[in-house]
Structure formats: C-alpha cells, structure tokens
C-alpha cells in the first residue's frame, strides 16, 4: 500500500521530494523517517531492491545513488532528494539482460536470488572502477554483500565472465568506431 493512501494522524510531518529513479523523475510527499529502501520498494514499486537486514550488513538493498554504491536501507528517502538512483531494474535493455546479469545466469551465481540484485549492483560498480579484477580484488570489492546460498564460488566466476564480456563489448565498440584502422 502506498504511503499516499495512509491515513496519517494529525500533525505527522511529511515533506515533498523529487528523486530521479532509473531515469524517471518521481515526486512524492513522504515522512522524513521513510527509508530510501522502502521508498524505492513501496512508492516506486521496484521489487529488485530487497531488504535483508535493514542495518547495513547484508547488501541486498544495494543501489547506485548519483554514481555511488550505497545501501538504501541506511539512507532516508529525503536524503535522495534531487539525486539520481539506479536499481537493478534499470539494467536490462529492450528485454536483453545486461552482461553482468547474463554472467550471473551463465555461472549459476544465484540460488534463492534474494541477494542477487545487490550483488549485481555491487559488481557493476566494482567493474566500473576495475575492469579486470584479480580474485582478491573481487573478494574485496564484494565483501559488503552477503549471500547465504552460493558460497560465493560462482559469483567470483560470474564477475570474471562479466569482466571479459564487458571488455569484449568495449573492444567491439572501439574496433567498430575505428573500423578502417582496425581493418
């Protein structure tokens, strides 16, 4: 149920905020105590934002906020005012899985899947910073996310595969752009 329909008692404070969510501007009247994770799940109907602990340990709620990887359960929605949020829902284009999503599927890097959007978002930010991470760097980069099912082995592989895939894509774009020279 959305907060808008909530029969607020007299005097409960609210504030209007605008947030850009996966490229679209969303304006809502919210309570200042509303967590960003709940805002995204309930107001924006983005189920990919999962809540596993609400105290910043599990990483299931990981999203990108103006390019920074954050745990949305540790922020209030009002703190995202005028900022841009990206969630896992924003990754697939035209029904095509993003190379990271594809890699998770190929490598069986998810079981129950509750952690998966968080891991996909964390992987995205890891690969943006370091397109070709070593195993230790992967472990370091994903240490803020917990998966209870996979034992991480296939997640490491998925990150490797996604890194390869993304660098191939970049290569393809580069050679495509420099077509003449490449030939």
């Amino acid at each position: 149920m959305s907060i808008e329909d909530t029969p607020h008692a007299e005097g409960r404070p609210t504030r209007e905020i605008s947030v850009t969510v996966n490229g679209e501007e969303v304006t809502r009247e919210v309570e200042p105590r509303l967590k960003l994770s709940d805002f995204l799940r309930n107001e924006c109907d983005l189920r990919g934002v999962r809540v596993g602990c609400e105290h910043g340990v599990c990483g299931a709620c990981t999203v990108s906020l103006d390019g920074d990887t954050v745990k949305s359960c540790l922020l209030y929605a009002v703190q995202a005012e005028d900022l841009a949020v990206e969630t896992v829902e924003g990754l697939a284009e035209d029904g095509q899985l993003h190379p990271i999503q594809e890699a998770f599927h190929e490598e069986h890097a998810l079981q129950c899947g509750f952690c998966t959007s968080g891991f996909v978002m964390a992987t995205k930010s890891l690969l943006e910073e370091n397109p070709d991470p070593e195993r230790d760097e992967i472990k370091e980069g994903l240490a803020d996310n917990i998966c209870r099912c996979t034992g991480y082995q296939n997640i490491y592989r998925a990150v490797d595969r996604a890194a390869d895939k993304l660098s191939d894509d970049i290569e393809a774009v580069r050679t495509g752009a420099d077509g003449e020279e490449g030939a």
Partner: protein
Amino acid sequence: MSESEPQTGHEAGDELEGRSFTGQSVRRFEDRRILTGEAEYIHDVTPPGCLEMAIVRSVHAHANIVDVDTSAAEDHPDCELVLTIEDLQESYNPQPCGLEGYEEWSLADGKARFVGEPIAVVVAADRYLAEDMADLVNVEYETLDPVVDGMDARESDTLVHEDAGTNVADNERIAFGDPDGAFADADHVVEGTYEWGRVSGVPLETAGVVAQYDEDGDSFHIDCNIQLHTLVDDTVYETLGRPADRVELNVPADVGGSFGTKIAIHRYCNLAAMAAEQLGRPVKFVEDRIENLQGGDMHCSERTYEMRLACDDDGTMRGLDVWFVDDFGAWPHYPVNQVLKPLSVLTNSYAIDDVVYEYDLVLTNKTAQTAYRGFGVDPHQYALEMLVDDAARELDIDPTEFRRRNLVTPDQLPYRIPSGNIYDSGDYPGAMDRMDEILDENERCEGGLLDPETVEQRREEGFYRGTQTAVLIEPGVSGSDWTDRQRTDDETIQNRSREDVAELPEHLRAEVKPDGTVLAWLATDSSGQGHQTLVAQLLADELGLLPSDIEVDYLDSVEAPTEYGSAASRMAVMLSGASVGVGRQLRDALAELAADHWGVDREAVSYRDGRVERSGTDDSLSLAELAELDDEARTHVSYDYEHPATGFPEFDDALTHKYPVYPTAAYAVNAPIVEVDVETGEVEVLKFYTLRDCGTMLNPMIVEGQAHGGIAQGLGAALMEEFGYDQGSGQPQAITMFDYLLPSTKNMPDIEMEHTSHPSPFTETGAKGVGEGGMIDAPAAIACSINDALEPLGVTADKLPFTAHRARKRLREAEE
C-alpha cells in the same frame, strides 16, 4: 585439480534434439525473473487494502506477565487492532508442533519464556505506524531467574515449564549390539567432550506472511514463505480451528532461502490470519532481521557431547558411546527428528557394531529451535570425528591411517549400520586415496600450501597449518513415518507390521496445454534449489521435448496432497523419480488417446519425440493435436513416486521399528587447508578441497552450487556463527548481523571440487540427495584440520565455533 567447470551451457530453450538433458548443466528457468527484479517474494505481496502488523515482544528471558495494557494503543486513531492472549484463547487454539504436554499459544500465555517472545500484536496502515502503536502497548512484568545453560538446566530448580516438573523434555538411551562387552574387552577407551554452539540457517529473506479471510466461505488464504507447506499446514489450520481445506497456504515461487528454518514460521501465519479475520481485511507481516535473530523460532542445535570410543591396539574401533544434551530453548519444536536423525549415520563411514546412543533434550529460556540443513547430523559428525582424532593421538596412529583401517569397504555395500539404516553405494577408501593423491600433487609439493618447508617456515612465524581428511556421510531422503513411530509406545511398536508403515511419496502432476507444451505441478515448495529446472529437464527427456516446452508451477496446500516435500535432501531423488513416473504415465495416456482416435489397438501406436505414431502408416499426432482431441481431461496425469526404501526389503526392519531410514548415502572427503595465527587465534581456511559422490548428477551445476553453499554455511558454523546468550540474564548476544557473523567473500576460500559417482541402487535415477551436504561435512572437516594444525601445541577445536577468542583461550591454557 581444478573444479570441474559446468559442462557446456545449455540454455533451457536450446535446440538439442535427440540429446539427453539429464546430467547436463541446464541453466535455470528461475533466473531471469530474479535477475531483472521481477521475482515476487513474499515481501513483495501486498493486496489492495492491506494492513500491516507489528509484534510486541518480551524484553525479559523469563518473567511473569502481570498486565498487558493496550488502552493507549487502542485509543490511538492510527490503530486498527490489538490482539492479546485473551483474544486468542477466546476464539482459537494453541499451536501444535512439538512434544505432547506443552501447550504453546501464538502469544505468550501468562509467562514470557525467552527474549523476543511475542506478547501482543498490533495492526495499522503500514509498518511504520504499526511499530508506533506497538510502542504504546505497556507490559508489566515480574521477572524470574532464567535458566540459560543446557547442562545446568537438567538439575536446575528453576523450571521453564512448571507443569512439566523438569527441564528435561525427553531423554532416551538406545543400545545396539553389545556395547558393554565391547568397552570391557577393548585395549583402550578414549573419552572426549565436545561442544557445538547454537547456529542457524539465517536465510537472507526473513519470514513473511499475507493473510486474507473470506467471510462467506469462513476460509483463509495465506501467502507465506513457510517451508514444507503441505506437511506443516496443520500447525496453522489446527490453530485457527478450521478444517484443512479451508486454510489454504500458498508459497510464492520465489523464496529467499530457508535451509529448513522456515518450517517454524507458523506463529506468524497464525497471528496474521487471526488479525485478518478480526478486521476483515488483508494483514501482512514481514519479520525484521532483529526479530528474526532474536526471537524468530529459528535457532538450531546447541549441544554438549560426551563420547567414548573403544579401540584395540591395532587400531580397530570396537565400540562407540554417544551421550549428549541438546538445548532446545523454551519450547520443544520438532524435537524428535533433531536428536534422532544422527542415528541414520550413527557410525559415520566406520564399521562399528556395538554402540550406545543417549540424549537429554532440555528446555531453557532461549528461542525455540527449528530445523536447519542437516537437522542435527552436523554436530554428530563433528563430535564423532573429533573423538576419532583424539583416539588416533592416544593410540599414536596417524589419524588418516586410523580412519582408513576402519572404513566400510566397497564389497560391504549396501551396508547396514547398527541402527538399521543402510548405506547404498560408494567407495570410501578409494575416495580417501584419491584425496591423498590430489593433496600430494597440488599441495604437498614444492610451492604448494603444504610444502613441508613452507609449513615449517610459517610455523616459525607463528602460523600453524594443517589438513585432515575424513569420509563424511550425508543421509538423504527421509520419508517414512519414523517421527510418529518414535512417539509410539514400545509395545505397539513391537506389534507393528510392515503394512502399518506410512510412506511419504512425492507427488507430481502434468498436463498437455492446447499449444502442445506441458505444464507440470509441484506439490512442494522451493527456496532456490532449482526444482523447476530439474523437473523440466527430466520431463523433457521422458517426453522427447525441450526443457523450454515444459512449464512448472506449484500447488497450494489445499490442492496438493499432504506429502512431505522439500526436506532432508529429498528433492533430487524424489522429484526425479516422480518426473520419470509422470512422464511414463503421460506417454501412455497420449498413446491411448491416439489409439482411440484412430480406432486401433493400443499396441498399434507408439509415442516418440513429442508425437504419437501409428505403426505401418505415416499417421501421427502432435501433442497440440492430442490436446485438442482430449475432451475428458485424459491428458491430465498425476503420479506418486514411492519413497525408495519402500521397495527394498532390506529396509523392512528399520521401517517397521523406531529408527530413521535414509536410503541414500552421499558422501564427501574434505581436506580444508587451515592456518591458525597463534598470536591472535584467527583461523583462516586457505583452500577447501572436496571430493564428493552423489550418485547420478542430474544437473552438475546445481549439485555443485548446493555443495558450495553448504560448505560456506559449514565454515560459518565452524568458525564464526553463534547465538550466544548472557549467562546471567539470558539476553541474546547476537541480534544483528554485526553480532551473528555470516561468512562473506573475505572468509570464503576457493573451493576445489571433484566428483566421483556411484549411483544409488535404491533410487529411480541413481541420484542421491545432496541438499544438506557441506553443512553436514564441513564443520567436522575444518575442526579436524585445526586439530592437525595445532597438534604440536596439543590444542584441539573442542568447541565450535572455534572463534579467535576461543582459540586464544585454548592456546593460552596449553602454554601454562
């Protein structure tokens, strides 16, 4: 050795005519919706007009509840409803689940018995408001001394349940063979005390429920992420006081992990359903993480073992004596299974004939236990392997050699252990040898982690390395009525015959859709194991279709027969058997339909590759055409795959009497290489070698995924995870994920996995269950590797988790 790469990927929809999908790493059907954020977990279910519930919980471990003042909450305009124990007792029943003689209500009745025990519920428009209302409920307590330690509770004058007159809710001593004789005759008797800390599955998704009440039918529709929804539905419909067919439990296709733990979330289902009935509106409850860790009825075994092993000078194991106390917390939930399942692997991989097994199941002021991956087998394997290590040392025999001398040999299989269970297939000594070879080749050589020079050098720097192999059996596929048998009196059990045994088969339905694809219905719920994919790939083979031609859906608790479902690694075995059976049935039904249509004998037609053909002609009918012809639902079939022990007379005796029957014995030989920093006590697992046998691998990718996850949980239990309690106040010490530590990428080493395959002669497809592997075998393996590493210092991992703090303590004691 490198871990076997999943075989060349097959997308579920790939064109692979004429090839078998069984045994291939078919990519999962379940993934796409999860990866794109389209999956619907229970947290995402919110029907129109839905209200939310919050719970008022006890802040004391043990206290009389003098008064629950709800007036401030009730007077508040945002409050929709408050329920207290009086409201429950007026209209509903206690919740069944546990031993007779303990009457548990969904809210505390007169006395709080653990911190976090629900005392009242409030309902409001959303969770924020509901929590505000919960704060307005005022509970007056009269505190009592708590009983916190399981061993002390046995003698304590403070009782968790006064009416019971004791904190020992159950105890039993069972002897097999002639243990007294064995212990009297043996050259040595080695003793040890080993402790296992309170752990649990802690799935990433907490419990959730959305309850709706229909006044016209006086019935409930309850969406929830309970596990085994067709088996444990009685804990909900009996509490609500309605017949089973008016309380529909529906589990979403996506469940964020369970590992056994979610069988015990009925309390939440009951409370939300009661609130929904009172209000005539849907009511949702999502447990938060603190509630889950503190008082969510989801902790598992907490045991102290005192064990004895009788051996001869030549290293022959003669007798085993197991005694333990299991601290169940405030209520004896699912107690019998938990303490008796280890009987199915009583002597692990060793041939020992004379054994005693004895336990005290005690109650304390802690959260009640539930099931967790392994259901009590993991502590047993740990304690037994610790004892074996201690004995090897006392006999001055190399622990690996000591184990090898006592292993059940391939020519003894199928092998009956003293408690009646039978190990189906395998080669335990061969697996030990192979692991030795792997370690020699990769690690005990120059540059390897166990290169003697490196080990020596690291030791000088204060880092002690070691590894120890052992063969650990995973009992798979429970399924008969042994819980009931265990509670039946001895005389009745004596007079029982084989015909009295209730079996628990697995049910599967399938039908042909108008477009010629096949829709299958599972009677079981899933929580990430890939059941849909498994059924699709097996059915595709049976019907000569592609996995993408098969759709798999779920039945709710009313539609599905009361079966057993997803527990004790049943699914690979039971669902594969059911898939083969239902496929056969559907082929027959289709052939008959075609024969009738053509007006010929059944023998004149045959089913092949998604069509029925009429011999000697070019006539054939596709599945879509057959569906069109079928006006009597003859293309709808269902099949029950019998529990594998049913068909084998070898199991008759164990089935008829009171012991658990787990007819598959998957096993692992592990060699985790550990390093202990003796300065800090920190234990690091540098690499985890494992060699595993689960018989036929139906989908190797999924098999490996299960093992990886199990090993990670095992590592957590061995080194990090524990629900500690303050010994004075009974306050839980691990109520956030900052205190209850789960393994992260930083703790998990690379796992090097190899497989060997000895298909089970007892199951339809040769598969053995593997759902609990890793959790069952990794803690024992890590503990034994620590024993090896610290051998020179005379320290063993005698209490798990072997945290840095505990390790330091042991090391300090050893120095003194």
